[in-house]
């Protein structure tokens, strides 16, 4: 017969196995060839952790457990099946929020038991705080991404002072709760309310274009919230898994900031492009090209690089672009897709959209990989991208984009830019690329233009 202590010991052994599976799963994510198996391994780790926990004698009543698991599984599986690949940022934002909410609730439930040590009370507060901020911050991010609320930065006078007071109020309430902890404490309610308000306040001043950074950061918070819950419950597996997620979110946040040449504090505390206005006049002549002429040049090309931006996905052109790429390859040409880190609406988003259109992953290359060889490219095709190919980022010190790493398509022998009309990009900055000696503008709907070239190839 197993006594309670033996059971707890066995559950912790199971947790060790889970931790190993999580680590191995992430390790296998280092290559697209093994990634799917890694995800499966990680999910097995989660399953045995949950099943192991159910053997614990101290737990929710069975009917509550079953209700929670069934409702959660239903909602989760429907969301996972229904979501469009373009809607992935919204889904991840929502999931970040749920993770935060769950940690908030775990912290709150722990506050019901009397006789918690001060250390436990501090961790309860941390769990509620990080969880609450993650919850409302993610909901605002979701609202902005899904355009249920205005995506532009919301700023008002005295915002910094207001936020400062908010932080002060949070600290005071937290200390007051820890001095006299009780589930009925008004200070506990204050901490919950203030953390929820704080989550909103730190997300509304951030513009829609910066949302990739914010969801990466909130991803990290959701992990840290799980860590805090782990401290509350004295549970190692929560701490290990939460740390892995926290580290992942931080790395992605850092990559995104670097790709935009901005510091995290700049993203969080100031609207974009407010500081600098370019004084440099762009000079030169725009040279349009027809789809027929573009076909003739492409037919003779040996090396082609395609640079997609989110505009391509908006025009739903990725499938016809893949068709063009296949035809070019059949024609003996080597085709690569160069993906800028901030192409798309979240880290790695463009890769998923192209994979969905059946572009093989070995054709997807990173900016740092393509730039050294770009002068050997016969043709660079820019589809729905603007700021990430703006040469002013390299050589115009007055440009607001100056210093941001870009894909140097202007060094290719010929550049085709597919665009609806002349107009500045997301940042509203002029693009000298359009006036370049070797640039040809292919005006019109990207999908129609590419379809036209595809038809010529077939005919």
């Amino acid at each position: 017969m197993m006594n309670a202590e033996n059971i707890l010991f066995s559950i912790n052994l199971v947790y060790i196995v889970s931790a190993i599976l999580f680590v191995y799963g992430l390790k296998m994510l280092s290559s697209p060839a093994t990634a799917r198996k890694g995800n499966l391994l990680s999910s097995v780790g989660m399953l045995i952790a949950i099943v192991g926990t159910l053997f614990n004698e101290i737990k929710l009543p069975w009917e509550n457990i079953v209700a929670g698991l069934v409702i959660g599984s239903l909602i989760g599986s429907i969301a996972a099946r229904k979501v469009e690949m373009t809607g992935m940022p919204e889904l991840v934002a929502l999931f970040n929020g749920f993770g935060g909410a769950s940690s908030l609730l775990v912290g709150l439930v722990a506050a019901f038991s009397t006789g918690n040590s001060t250390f436990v009370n501090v961790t309860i507060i941390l769990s509620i705080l990080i969880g609450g901020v993650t919850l409302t911050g993610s909901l605002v991010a979701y609202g902005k991404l899904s355009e249920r609320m205005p995506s532009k930065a919301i700023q008002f006078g005295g915002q910094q002072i207001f936020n400062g007071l908010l932080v002060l109020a949070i600290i005071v309430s937290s200390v007051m709760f820890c001095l006299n902890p009780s589930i009925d404490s008004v200070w506990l309610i204050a901490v919950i309310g203030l953390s929820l308000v704080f989550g909103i306040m730190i997300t509304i001043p951030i513009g829609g274009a910066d949302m990739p950074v914010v969801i990466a950061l909130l991803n990290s918070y959701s992990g840290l919230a799980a860590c805090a819950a782990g401290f509350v419950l004295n549970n190692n597996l929560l701490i290990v898994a939460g740390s892995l997620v926290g580290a992942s979110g931080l790395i992605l946040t850092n990559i995104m900031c670097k790709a935009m040449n901005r510091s995290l504090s700049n993203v969080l505390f100031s609207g974009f492009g407010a500081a600098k206005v370019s004084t440099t006049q762009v000079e030169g002549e725009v040279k349009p090209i027809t789809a027929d002429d573009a076909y003739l040049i492409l037919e003779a090309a040996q090396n082609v690089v395609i640079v997609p931006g989110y505009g391509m996905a908006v025009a739903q052109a990725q499938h016809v672009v893949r068709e063009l790429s296949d035809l070019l390859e059949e024609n003996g040409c080597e085709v690569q897709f160069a993906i800028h880190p901030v192409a798309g609406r979240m880290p790695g988003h463009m890769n998923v959209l192209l994979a969905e259109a059946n572009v093989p992953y070995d054709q997807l290359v990173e900016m740092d990989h393509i730039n050294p060889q770009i002068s050997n490219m016969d043709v660079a095709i820019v589809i729905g991208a603007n700021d990430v190919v703006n040469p002013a980022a390299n050589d115009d010190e007055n440009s607001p984009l100056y210093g941001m790493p870009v894909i140097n398509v202007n060094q290719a022998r010929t550049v085709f830019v597919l665009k609806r009309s002349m107009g500045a990009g997301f940042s509203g900055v002029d693009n000298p690329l359009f006036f370049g000696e070797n640039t040809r503008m292919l005006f019109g709907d990207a999908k129609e233009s590419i379809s036209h070239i595809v038809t010529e190839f077939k005919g």
Partner: protein
Amino acid sequence: MEAIYLSFILVLAIFLGFELIAKVPSTLHTPLMSGSNAISGITVIGALTAANSGSADLALWLGTAAVALATINVVGGYMVTDRMLAMFKKKG
């Protein structure tokens, strides 16, 4: 001592996380994020044991809600990650 011991695990796990995640190619950053959503759903095991039959009704309800929310992340996160990763294919 408890606090020190848990902090030890926290610090080591964060370092391990940095080493592991730095090796994930940017091609897979979106599945990485949805996969981390699933892993952060680990709070489910905390939610299962945070309250018990002796707890107040409110605590039971909050605990059940926590289980449901975390399960959404676990199930939804792993499923959508699998859906995405299945689309990544090699040439030919």
